[in-house]
């Protein structure tokens, strides 16, 4: 037996002032000494009770102590036998530990409200405690933990290894295998001194006895002594369903995989979730967890317990006024006119009439419902754009399920992260898509588009084909109509900066988006659309207009030739063309291959829309000229809000010069406001619509995303101005109310004399004959940066720009650049192949200007 002691005073991040030794009885009634972190301000809001798991100790919560102890009392005990608490020879079961935590909190005389924070096996202990102290508990934060072993789950490998016959003591106590194995789960690797601090109380085998005891106490078997206690804790959660709860998760956890998160989400349906993509079991080391807990605690203190939404609460519309996403399709259910055309090399490869499409969608949706796809189930659609995707998408909507649509542009690892994180319950895909889904381990019903040979079908685990489902559904009643408030889609951001974020839309929001697109571009029943831009390829049926997908790889816009475009236009006598800038570039480049008849077809187009990335007015004019000089627009928006604003080519040509890219007036129904930047480049200012104030662009409208998926803290930040969405873009409004985009928040340059936004100066530099492309970036720490120009200047050598070039750049931009560098090519982001990756440019410039990196980038 060893009594409790205070931790060494030199552990990184741990203030010795926080620690004390407290005496409280153990489960047997014997007084024991505990090491407890206990620190409080003069008048705390309440108590944060942090309960660690195995084999860690209270040290794991040091960031939360530092973050919250300015206005909360923060208590983090080491369990008996753990950390620096007293060592005893007794076995402590889960029930004992729940009792002991209660004795300790009595001895500490804690008062409510209590915010419980727990990790790993601290979860069951603290929840057991919470169930007994409901009158005190105001909120719960759970980090990678579990209260039950789901039936479909295998025993976590690490635990299994530790429990394997006779090895328990060797793995957990005699050696440091289990301890070190757990510390190695950090991403990135823990700094050595931090890992050593975790190890500090566990230097000898004798001090590790309770690590072994904890592992032995995991009730994997149904007759395990702690099984009944754990089951009681799990069932007791029913009583905590009113308690605000935040689930914080590191998905790269070999112990507590996502399925344990799902289990907790089912048991605590009120819980908010934040998954830190890329983080693992030691999520508190891997990700800014303390900042998230701070927000959650602030909300508790302020009585804000619901997730901040990007909208005021949605009101269910009456059925008379509501137009569902498939209303137009059903309205034309008897129409034998063409609805969707998929173009092949020589002409229409596939033509679907309104009547066919409506019947397929109806039957398929009934079939989906029949085979167990429930309302609000998430369904991954791994089908390339075209007639099949259109049918599957509308059928999924019609069945009340939620399509999860991830762009192949995310790459396989990105796709895997996105789909696994989105809690997909079913998969509909072509062979390649299903194969990928199987490789990712996506669960649920697998439905194939197209039939396969029996062998392949078995190999891919196909449960049904779409044709089979439509046959099943033909005899069945139509699925019930989802409410406007039901989730309608999960889309993903580009992932250009960090992992792609899931974006959740509800039906009301997609219906509003359809109406805003229709009204912004004056789309009427007589219009027909060539959709060479993936998202818009799906909008035809919702708008009630025919659409054609040209012969191209829709995921690679640059593959669209002018002839393929002309053929698609001819196939439906199109009046509208929606395309990405890369497609327009190729159309212009290949325009001379058009024959007179094709040219004549093209000239009947009334409107060209360029979307997906910025486009130069010269390119837009050239593309418009290929289409007979038609009206051309380029809307501004993002995955979370599209469109926000719209500008015509004519407007761009008349008044498109200023500080940034002119993106036009907010579209009807959409409000734009600016949150001004402070000196550190943070958008902290109150929303304003005053002209010529630069700041974060904030958007309000009925078609804005509902929320980010399982990213509570991100959602809270993006929606912190109630009912508004923060875009992360920087810009300003001009005196005419037009919006100008000046770059991304992350690209704002913060100098000692103020902030600089990059886009305006870059445009001024690019007007110089010598400069093809320019990036304006900051070098140095935030608030102390200097401004550097990095340019593609083909007639100059790579490296430090000549004095003449520097002079002309400073003059043109009106900025006293500390340096200018010439490069052969600037890095552009992978997905759009047009947006300059300024963060990478900044890193390169910093390296060169440090003197160490040589003169070439």
């Amino acid at each position, binding site marked *: 037996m060893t009594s409790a002691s205070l931790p060494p005073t030199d552990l990184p991040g741990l203030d010795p002032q926080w620690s004390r030794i407290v005496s409280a009885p153990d489960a047997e009634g014997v007084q024991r000494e505990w090491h407890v972190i206990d620190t409080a301000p003069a008048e705390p809001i309440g108590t944060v009770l942090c309960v660690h798991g195995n084999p860690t100790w209270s040290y794991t919560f040091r960031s939360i102590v530092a973050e919250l102890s300015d206005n909360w009392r923060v208590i983090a005990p080491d369990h008996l036998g753990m950390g620096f608490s007293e060592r005893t020879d007794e076995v402590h079961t889960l029930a004992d530990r729940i009792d002991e935590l209660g004795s300790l909190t009595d001895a500490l005389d804690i008062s409510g409200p209590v915010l419980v924070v727990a990790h790993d096996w601290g979860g069951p202990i603290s929840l057991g405690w919470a169930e007994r102290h409901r009158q005190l508990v105001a909120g719960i934060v759970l980090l990678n933990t579990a209260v039950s072993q789901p039936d479909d789950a295998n025993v976590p490998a690490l635990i299994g290894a530790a429990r394997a016959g006779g090895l328990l003591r060797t793995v957990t106590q005699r050696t440091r295998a289990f301890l070190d194995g757990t510390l190695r789960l950090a991403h990135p690797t823990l700094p050595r001194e931090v890992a050593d601090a975790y190890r500090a109380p566990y230097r000898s085998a004798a001090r590790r006895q309770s690590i072994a005891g904890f592992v032995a106490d995991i009730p994997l078997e149904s007759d395990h002594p702690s099984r009944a206690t754990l089951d009681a804790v799990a069932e007791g959660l029913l009583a905590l369903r009113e308690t605000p709860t935040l689930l914080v998760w590191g998905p790269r956890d070999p112990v507590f995989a996502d399925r344990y998160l799902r289990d907790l989400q089912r048991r605590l349906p009120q819980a908010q979730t934040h998954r830190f993509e890329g983080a693992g079991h030691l999520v508190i080391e891997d990700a800014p967890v303390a900042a998230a807990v701070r927000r959650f605690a602030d909300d508790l203190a302020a009585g804000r317990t619901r997730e901040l939404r990007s909208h005021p609460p949605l009101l269910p519309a009456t059925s008379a006024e509501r137009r569902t996403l498939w209303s137009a399709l059903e309205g034309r259910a008897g129409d034998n006119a063409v609805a969707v055309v998929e173009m092949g090399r020589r002409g229409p490869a596939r033509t679907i009439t309104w009547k066919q499409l409506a019947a397929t969608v109806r039957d398929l949706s009934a079939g989906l419902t029949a085979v167990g796809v429930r309302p609000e189930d998430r369904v991954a659609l791994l089908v390339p754009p075209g007639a099949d995707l259109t049918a599957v998408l509308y059928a999924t909507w019609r069945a009340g399920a939620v399509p999860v649509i991830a762009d192949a542009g995310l790459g396989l690892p990105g796709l895997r992260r996105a789909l696994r994180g989105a809690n997909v319950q079913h998969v509909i895909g072509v062979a390649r898509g299903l194969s990928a889904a199987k490789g990712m381990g996506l669960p649920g019903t697998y439905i194939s588009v197209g039939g396969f040979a029996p062998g392949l079908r078995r190999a891919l685990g196909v449960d049904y084909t779409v044709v089979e489902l439509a046959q099943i559904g033909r005899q069945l009643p139509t699925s019930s109509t989802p409410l406007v408030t039901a989730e309608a889609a999960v889309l993903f951001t580009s992932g250009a900066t960090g992992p792609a974020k899931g974006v959740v839309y509800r039906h009301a929001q997609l219906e509003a988006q359809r109406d805003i697109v229709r009204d912004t571009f004056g789309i009427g029943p007589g219009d027909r659309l060539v959709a060479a831009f993936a998202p818009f390829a799906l909008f035809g049926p919702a708008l009630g207009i025919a659409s054609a997908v040209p012969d191209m790889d829709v995921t690679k816009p640059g593959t669209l030739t002018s002839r393929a475009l002309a053929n698609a236009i001819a196939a439906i006598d199109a009046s509208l063309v929606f395309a990405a800038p890369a497609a327009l570039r190729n159309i212009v480049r290949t325009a001379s291959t058009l024959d007179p008849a094709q040219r004549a077809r093209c000239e009947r187009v009334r409107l060209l829309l360029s979307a997906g990335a910025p486009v130069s007015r010269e390119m837009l004019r050239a593309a418009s000229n290929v289409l007979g000089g038609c009206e051309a627009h380029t809307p501004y928006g993002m995955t979370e809000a599209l469109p926000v604003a719209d500008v015509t080519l004519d407007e761009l040509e008349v008044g498109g010069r200023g500080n940034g890219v002119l993106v036009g007036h907010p579209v009807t129904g959409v409000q734009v406001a600016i949150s001004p930047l402070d000196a550190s480049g943070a958008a902290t200012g109150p929303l304003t619509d005053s002209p010529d104030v630069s700041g974060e662009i904030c958007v309000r409208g009925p078609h804005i995303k509902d929320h980010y998926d399982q990213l509570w803290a991100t959602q809270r930040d993006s929606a912190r101005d109630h009912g508004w969405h923060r875009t992360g873009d920087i810009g300003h409004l001009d005196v005419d109310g037009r919006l100008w985009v000046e770059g991304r928040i992350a690209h704002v340059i913060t100098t*000692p004399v103020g902030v600089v936004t990059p886009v305006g100066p870059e445009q001024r530099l690019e007007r110089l004959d010598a400069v093809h492309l320019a990036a304006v970036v900051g*070098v*140095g*720490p935030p608030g*102390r*940066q*200097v401004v550097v120009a990095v340019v593609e200047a083909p007639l100059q050598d790579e*490296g*430090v720009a000549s*004095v003449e070039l*520097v002079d002309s750049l400073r003059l043109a931009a009106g900025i*006293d650049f*500390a*340096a200018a*560098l010439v490069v052969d090519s600037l890095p552009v982001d992978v997905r759009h192949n047009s947006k300059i990756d300024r963060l990478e440019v900044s890193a390169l410039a*910093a390296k*060169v*200007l*440090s*003197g*160490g*990196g*040589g*003169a070439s980038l």
Partner: protein
Amino acid sequence: MRVLVTGGTSLLGAAVAQRLSDRGDDVVTMQRGEAAAPWMQLRGDIRDAAAVSSATEGVDAVVHLAARVSVVGEWDEFESVNVGGTQNVLDAVRAHGISRLVHVSSPSVAHFGEPLVAADADPADAERAHGHYARTKAMAEKLVLDAVDDSLSAVAVRPHLVWGPGDTQLLGRIVERATSGRLVLINGGSALIDTTYLDNAADALVAALDRVDDISGEAFVVTNGEPRTVAELLTRICRAAGVPEPTRSVPRSVASGVGAVVERAWSATGREGEPPMTRFLAEQLSTAHWFDQRRTQECLQWTPAVSLAQGFERLAAAYKRRKV
């Protein structure tokens, strides 16, 4: 106010004395040599404690610039001037009850070879500083700041790469090398560095003297707050002087190697003066060192009056006058 300026014949020392004199202060300078100047000049070696003591008699404040500045030379020489000389000043200040001291230091006292990016005035560290000059200056700065108490207000000011018309130290050497075609860039001259135009450095020292009671015990780096690449600085200096611009570049590793060889050869052959390339110089010309000036400007209540661009114009005019 009666002010003693040590090292009064240096470019910066003379400029400080001129400014103090212009505004009506009673200026005394002390130095080994003599120059034409309208204020009282005392000849004396800073290593001579008695001379320093008698120079401080009756003054209200001291601006201490006298130092051994070089990239080569024997340790004893640096130590006796930079450390011993400063100790003499401190002793004299104590002996005569003088309450204000501005000690002119150098950013090199806190530069340990790594790039300095938006740096502030980190503590001087004689152990880690590179070269005899930086080490002895670090020791001197520590002596001064440690001496601060109720009866003595002292501040260390570290002007970075001071240049201006008449400069023979930095500019003279660059121009001389450019003239003989020996001026090369290291790593393309891409390192970003801060410099200080002479007048601004002098203004900052006067400002420090005026504010010393409020900022006592602190160290400040002083620069123009306009970092530039080495390539741009050298090119503009050569243009102002009307000499050939540097066009050749060598990698840092080569420059350092050459520097080491030259240093050894130089001392082995017992040659006088400065060798053309030293490791210290190679490091200075290939490593970023620029500074965050917000604290300096706020505490000294000073901002540079002359921009780099104006400075280069004045420099060009000065070179032109000399030629004429």
